[in-house]
């Protein structure tokens, strides 16, 4: 009977990912995710650089910030690694935020990287948080509680607004206005016992897919337009293969 319980506990732990698969017995290492922010392939420079979006609007970007959270590595069938307390605020203005270091990643091969753009609903209802989730970071709505999952602001002559500004603050964690998006990327198989780097392109141009800045230039509340923009930036990431 005792043995049966032990087996059950072991299976439960294995199933829930508390124990890594036995094949992963190699030494843990580290993995850095390096994010390269670009606009349509060109390096992203804030404020003065001019870009042209899919619709043909000329624009510049003042600020680009987003949460990258719940990072997971798998070998497509098995969870290999789940980053503990995985919340990162990536900011185009802060190069340090564009490198995410994952420590104690188990040795062994994995080929898939998964993460969320935004903050999961549990964190959204858990009260006062710190670190990347500290409300002083300016990515938090106090009145209608919730994290802003991603922010993009800039200017374009196409915007009939004060100073030709456009503002996208994308949030919303409650159905039917959820803007949390999952990203799944195939990455080159990582060899064990090494310090590894995975470089990702983050193409801000994807935000503007089928967006006419003349019509859509201020999205500051959860719902329809926010969902559409979230669908757009879900496609922001791609793996750079050297």
């Amino acid at each position, binding site marked *: 009977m005792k043995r049966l319980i032990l087996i059950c506990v072991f299976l439960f732990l294995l199933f829930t990912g508390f124990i890594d698969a036995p094949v992963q017995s190699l030494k843990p290492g580290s993995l850095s995710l390096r994010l390269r922010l670009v606009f349509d392939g060109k390096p992203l420079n804030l404020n003065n650089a001019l870009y042209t979006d899919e619709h043909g609007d000329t624009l510049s970007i003042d600020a680009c910030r987003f949460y990258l959270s719940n990072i997971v590595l798998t070998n497509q069938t098995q969870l290999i690694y789940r980053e503990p307390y995985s919340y990162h605020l990536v900011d185009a203005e802060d190069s340090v935020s564009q490198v995410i270091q994952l420590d104690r990643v188990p040795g062994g091969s994995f080929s898939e990287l998964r993460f969320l753009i935004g903050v999961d609903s549990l964190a959204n209802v858990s*009260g006062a*948080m710190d670190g990347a989730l500290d409300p002083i970071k300016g990515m938090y709505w*106090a009145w209608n509680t919730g994290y802003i999952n991603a922010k993009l602001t800039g200017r374009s002559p196409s915007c009939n607004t004060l100073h030709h500004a456009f503002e996208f603050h994308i949030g919303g964690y409650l159905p039917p206005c959820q803007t949390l998006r999952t990203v799944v990327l195939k990455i080159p198989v990582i060899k064990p016992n090494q310090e590894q780097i995975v470089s990702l392109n983050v193409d801000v141009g994807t935000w503007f897919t089928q967006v006419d800045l003349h019509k859509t230039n201020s999205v500051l509340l959860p719902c329809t337009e926010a969902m559409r923009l979230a669908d757009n930036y879900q496609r922001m990431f791609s793996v750079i293969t050297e």
Partner: protein
Amino acid sequence: MKKTRLFYRVSGILALLTCILAFAGTDTPVKFNAPRGWPKPRYDFSNNPLTLHGFELGRELFYDPFLSSDSSTSCSSCHLSFTAFTHADHKLSHGIQGLVGTRNSPVLINLAWNTSFMWDGGVNNLEVQAINPLTNPVEMNSKLEDVINKLQRTAKYRKLFYRAFNDSIITSKRLLKALAQFTGNLVSCNSKYDSVMRHERDVHFTAREENGYELFKKNCATCHREPLFTNNKFENIGLPLDSVLRDVGRMKVTNDPADSLTFKVPTLRNVEYSAPYFHDGRVNKLKDVIDHYTTGIVESRTLSKELRRKIILSHDEQKDLLVFLKTLTDKSFLYNVQFRQNRVPD
């Protein structure tokens, strides 16, 4: 007369003793005791371990106008302990420079049981509620970051945060958790109604109170559910839309037309002292509130289904209901010295 005075003196001393015992010598954890028979509190103190010093820090912050941009306005400016933590005589409250808000400041009672905050339920957790008044331009008009930096520069707060969190580094998380230790402990559970429900010796409803209670159960208790006297839901109680603010209530949060003109059902505990009433304080007297429910309901698409059936009360019945509502007054709450400003020297 003498008897009454003696009664107040004795009950005052008893209340004080209870508080002293409850908090005696406690550097160490204080237990949050939910009154017997009440539902489980929604706010989870296990994620914000309650201590005497945490509570005291929260209270100090609550009463300190230093937290506002011009050091003029504190939380207590609009939430006064003697009036169940609402703003007496103010339909709408004013913050810095006399700027006026858009809603009647709500009572702060039994917040640990609230499932949401604000008249429209826009806030989902007690801890983050305080960010709103702190940062609202017509309330305290601060930036959270500035508040933290300001507090960090004072020796007094470095000391108080150290006592509460074993660390003098002030963060927004600690600020908000400390405030929640204070506001989450504003529990009112010692009204005459509670004594009667607990079958305490020699406490009975009068015949009129008893009749009022029966009328209450029949006409009001679906929404103002005992023992908290709210069901935490949102209802349109048939108030005509005001022409100035045109406040549609919860719909602002949900964008759902079904929520148009609905507002949070407020608790009725200490309602005798929490005038003015309704989300915009449009009514001053409790009697006028009952008048609204009996004769003032405006029909609309989203009118509460509980109010589609007319509430008919005779003149005497209205008086009895009023008498019952006054049994929800809890003097040990309103005059609790632990809830008042206890200034910590700078």
